[in-house]
Every structure is written in structure tokens, then in C-alpha cells.
């Protein structure tokens, strides 16, 4: 087994490189992704090695990036589109929802929409507005789209390659606050399927599930809870749409308690979906109602107060107390 230590940013870069080496039809499109290597340097050096036809510095228009990726897909190419930040995906929303999501169906399966839309998402980097949003639920809500998120360099490396290989369109959510954290990457063996949820920490009392940047927060909460004698099972969702419910069900059947964590506003969200679905699927094994720890129903706040908005260890532990204290 060959493993190397690298940041998530580097792992994505290496993953993109491997996908491009493997398949000449793969190309990257985005704003400032060539010479600059993207504002987060995820595509650093790729234009130099693969040329301007395969790493395209586009004119500044997200709708056009995705709209032309659709045409390229029809023509047999696999475009990986970079949205510079979460808050700038909305000009492309029309193309994503109206064409990307529906063309396989409308062409009766003649077309495949094997394209990837990379989205640096979530907050925690002290940025100004529109640079810290979590729009995943809009996409998860749309039939025809798949949504995934990585939380480790190893997953970043493999999941980006698996996404590019997929014949379905995938919204690939990258937790930007974790770009610079290092981890082991196994360069030979993919960890598991693209949509498989993974138990990051085994526990017995409460299942805590989330994705992207929340995974680290959940693990820290589990450490603290352990010291207080409560055992949390931490699950990294990875697949946001579809969600790997069998893995979640197995965990909740064991623990009997569920907390779903996310940065996005709580209402009509991924955590709402998880709690609702598990309430149905684990009707008789839940020992307490499932809870959500999420962002509030407000536009993402100015960064000086973003930590009050984002799920914190404290808020997760409060939820843990509530489900542990519950007597039905």
C-alpha cells in the first residue's frame, strides 16, 4: 500500500490529474483555473501540463460554464466545472436544474450528463459574504442530480475521480475550510463507493451524522463527550444525494439516538431529510426523537460572528444531552 501525506487541496489536484491522464475526454473549465491555478490552487500546474484546451480559463460567466459543459457532454466530453465559490453557483442554477438534471430523461437516455460541478462550500474561513454558503440542499432536492462531499484528503483524491468517471452529473462539494489540512492518501486502493457513508468513530450511545467541514467538529464533540462518559458514533455522510441510509439505519439501530449536523440553514435541508427518513426507517429502535444541529434561518452572517452560526462542539453536545436525557 502506497500512502502519502498531503492536503485536501493537493489531493484534489492529484485526483484531477489522474482523471485527466486516464481519459483524454476529461477537461476542466472555470474562472482563473489556468495560470493562477484557481483561487484555492486546486488546479495548480494542470494547464501547464495539459494545455489550454483541457484546462480552460473561461470568460466570467457561470451559466456559460455549465451550459457549455452540457454541450460538451452531448459531444462526448467530460467537463469538470469549477465554481469559484458556493455563492457564485447561482448564475448557473438555471442550466443545472433545467438542463443538467433533466437531459438524460428528456433524451430518453440517449444522452449521458457525465459532468462534475466542483463547489468550494461551507464557511469557517473568515471570508466576506457569498464566500461561505452551503447550497447543497437545492441540488439534493432536484431529481437528476447527485451530490457528494469529501471530508478527508483520501476521500478528496478518490471521490473526485469516481465523480468524473460517473455517467451522471455530480455536484461535488469541497469543504474549503479543510483544504489545507493534511491526511494520508492511499494512492492505490479506493476506500469505498462514492455514496457510501463511513463510520469515522465507533460509538454506542448516539449516532452523529454530518458531512464536509462538520465531520471534524463532530469528532471533536465525540472526544469531549467521551470524557463525560457518553459514546458518540460519528458518521461521515459523503453521499448527500443519494444518502446511504442502510449505513445510518445500522448505526441508529445500535445507538437508538440520532443527531444530524450541517452548516446550512435547518429548514428543508439535508439534516431534515436524515431525521425524517430515519424516523420512518428506525421507528421502533429510536429511543429519543432525532435532532438537528444546523445553521439558522438567516443569510450567512458576517464572518466576525460566523462561529455562532456554524454548528459548534457546544451545540452538538447540547443536543447530545437532550437525546440522552430524553425519557419517552
Amino acid at each position, binding site marked *: 500500500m502506497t500512502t502519502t501525506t498531503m492536503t485536501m487541496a493537493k489531493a484534489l489536484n492529484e485526483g484531477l490529474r489522474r482523471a485527466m491522464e486516464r481519459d483524454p475526454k476529461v477537461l476542466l473549465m472555470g*474562472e*482563473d483555473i*489556468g*495560470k*493562477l*491555478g484557481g*483561487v484555492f490552487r486546486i488546479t495548480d500546474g494542470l494547464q501547464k501540463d495539459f494545455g489550454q484546451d483541457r484546462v480552460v*480559463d*473561461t*470568460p*466570467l*460567466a457561470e*451559466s*456559460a460554464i455549465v451550459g457549455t459543459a452540457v454541450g460538451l457532454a452531448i459531444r462526448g466530453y467530460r467537463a469538470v466545472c469549477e465554481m469559484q465559490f458556493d*455563492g*457564485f453557483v*447561482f*448564475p448557473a442554477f438555471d442550466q443545472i436544474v433545467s438542463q443538467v438534471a433533466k437531459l438524460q430523461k428528456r433524451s430518453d437516455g440517449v444522452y449521458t450528463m457525465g459532468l462534475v460541478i466542483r463547489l468550494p462550500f461551507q464557511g469557517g474561513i*473568515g*471570508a*466576506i*459574504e*457569498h464566500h461561505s454558503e452551503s447550497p447543497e440542499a437545492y441540488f439534493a432536492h432536484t431529481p437528476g442530480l447527485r451530490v457528494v462531499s469529501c471530508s478527508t484528503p483520501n476521500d478528496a483524491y478518490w471521490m473526485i475521480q469516481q465523480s468524473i468517471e460517473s455517467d451522471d452529473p455530480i455536484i461535488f462539494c469541497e469543504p474549503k475550510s479543510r483544504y489545507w489540512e493534511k491526511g494520508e492518501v492511499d494512492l492505490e486502493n479506493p476506500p469505498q463507493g462514492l455514496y457510501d457513508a463511513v463510520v469515522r468513530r465507533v460509538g454506542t450511545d448516539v449516532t452523529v451524522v454530518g458531512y464536509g467541514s462538520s465531520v471534524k467538529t463532530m469528532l471533536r464533540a465525540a472526544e469531549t463527550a467521551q470524557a463525560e462518559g457518553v459514546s458518540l458514533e460519528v458518521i461521515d455522510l459523503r453521499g448527500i444525494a443519494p444518502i446511504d441510509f442502510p449505513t445510518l439505519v445500522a448505526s441508529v439501530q445500535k445507538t437508538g439516538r440520532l443527531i444530524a449536523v450541517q452548516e446550512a440553514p435547518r*429548514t428543508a435541508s439535508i439534516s431534515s431529510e436524515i431525521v425524517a427518513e430515519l424516523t420512518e426507517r428506525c421507528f421502533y429502535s429510536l429511543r429519543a426523537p432525532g435532532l438537528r444541529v444546523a445553521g*439558522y*434561518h*438567516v*443569510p450567512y*452572517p*458576517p*464572518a*466576525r*460572528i460566523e462561529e*455562532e*452560526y456554524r454548528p459548534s462542539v*457546544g*451545540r452538538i453536545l*447540547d443536543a447530545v444531552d437532550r437525546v440522552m436525557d430524553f425519557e419517552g
Partner: protein
Amino acid sequence: MIDEELVQLLTPEGERVTHPDYASTLTGEQILSMYRDMVIVRRLCNESTSLQRQGQLALWAPIQGQEGAQIGAGRALAPMDFTFPTYREHGIAWCRGVPPEDVLRLFRAVSTGGWDPQKYRHHVPTIVLGNQVLNAVGYAMGIQRDGADEAVLTFFGDGASSQGDVLEAFVWASSFNTPVVFFCQNNQFGISTPSSTQSRVPLFRRARGFGFPGVRVDGNDLLACYEVTRAALENARAGGGPTMIEAYTYRMGAHTTSDDPTRYRVDAEVEVWKHRDPIERIKALLVREYQTRPASFEAVAEEAEAFALKLRDDVLAMGRPDPLSMFDHVYAEPHPLVEEGRREMAALLAQEGAH
């Protein structure tokens, strides 16, 4: 004149040139006062960059090199006109009377706006490229319905000129003949992307295809920017419809404090533009034509220093917002989810305070 299509009233050396359509109407006193504006706004940028480096701002978007375009356009406005900026119009904000420390609120990440847009008739900054241009056209449609003697001036960059919103705004403005002036600062770059990627023809020529005039002005020539904008606004107020102005300039600094321009441009290019500095050009004119004495320039420089000191103090005094303020103004009318969130957070904060 090198470029016949470029409106220029002052050469980089500060010598006047004539133009068939535009003549400078500014007095020496006005020019000196606009010189002062440019110096102060540049000082604001330098101070903000230092504040960012010292961890006091999350980000800063400098305008060095674009002071002529912004002070020229900003001073051409009539008090009742309304402006729609991007995140880089600090010079326009200055001309509109927005308190300078308020301009920094967004960049200190204590606010997602920063000032009262109705009070200063200057909309809050828009970061999503191109959005505000459509909003500006809508505002201009309102002016039309009110029969008011006002115009709208809206800003965007060479990069944003590729956004659907901007091009759709052109269609609407033309179709409804709205009193709006589109002011595009072509500073040659998106972030790293050269303006040649956005357009194979000079940007101002696009306007004609949409059915209204486009003018390319030397963006480093304060006098020309002032006259071209003034004329376009007057025309708009008089019912003449939209104009697009392309201020041809150069971003002397980085895109923002997060950017590293050495990755995509060469120093030689920056050197060339240094000789076209908008402030030096006006200074040369003031000396040559108006015999402005060194003492006057020194007084401006001193004022700029004092300004920077005060700005720094004001910014450092800006406290962390009350976290509960995130629940304010989300809606105009009471909303149960917002109130629930407010109560939840208040309880959490009280609990933390008690610990």
C-alpha cells in the same frame, strides 16, 4: 493622440489635448479639490491594505490606478442621482459622502452591507458579479415612472461584462430607454483572466449592438472621465437613454489582498502603466497651468495622513457585532423561524455567559 477612439483631455504628461466632442469645464479650484479626493482615496487603500495585513480586515480590494476613473465619474454625479457599485467603488463611495469607515465594514467582516444606501444614494456593494447592473436598470425604470430629473450610474468590471445579467441589463435599458449610465472600468483583468478573454472587440463597441452609444475614455484621465460621465448622465436625465462608458485603465495592485499577481502578469506591464498614473498627471497640470505651489500639495498630503490615522482608529474601534444581530432585518415582517433561532441563540449565549 494615439488611439482615436479613446477620449482623452489630458496626456500622461499632464498636457491638455482637445477632443471634438468633449471639453474640460473644470476650474483650477475644482481640479485641485478632485486631486485631493484622489490622494485621500489612494491613502484609504494603502491604509486598508496595511490593516488587512495586520489582521484587522478579512480582505481588501484596492483601487490604485483607478482613482481618476472613480473620482472623475463620482464628481460628475448630481446629488439626486443614484449609484450601484461593485465591491471596488471606494472612490465613488467617497464622492457620495459615505463615511470611509463604513466602506470598511464589509471588509472587516462585521457587516454584509455597510451604510444606509438611501441616505447616500449609493447602493450597498454587490459581490455577485453583474447582479447590480440589472438592479440599476430597474431603479432607472422607477425614475422614468416618477418623471424625476435623475439618472443612475452603475459600475462593473471587464470581467463582469461577460455575465448574462450585464448583457440582459443592456437589452432592458435599450428597450425601455432608461436613464442609466453603465460605467465599466476595464482594468485589464478579472482576477487573473485578461480582458481579451472577455471580449475580442473593445468593450465599449458592444453598446452599439444593443442600440445605445458606447464611449471609451482614458480611465487614468480625471478630466476626461468627468466630462464623459457628466455628458452621459445629462443625456440620460434629458430622456436620451443609456450610455455605456468604458474607462480604459489598469489595476496597479493585486485583485485583492488574497491575490498573487506575479502568477499571471509581468512587471514590465505594470511599469508602463505607472507612467500613466492618474494622480501624477493632474499634479503636473496643476503645477503647469495653475501654478499650484508645493505647499498646497503638502497640505493635501498632510490631510491624507491625518485621514488615515483617523480611519485606522475608527476601524479598530469597530466592535464585534452582537451575534443576535444576524436575526435582524432578515424579513420586514415577523417570521417564526427567525424568532425561534433568535431565542435559541440567546439562550445559548446566556448559558455560555453563565459559565
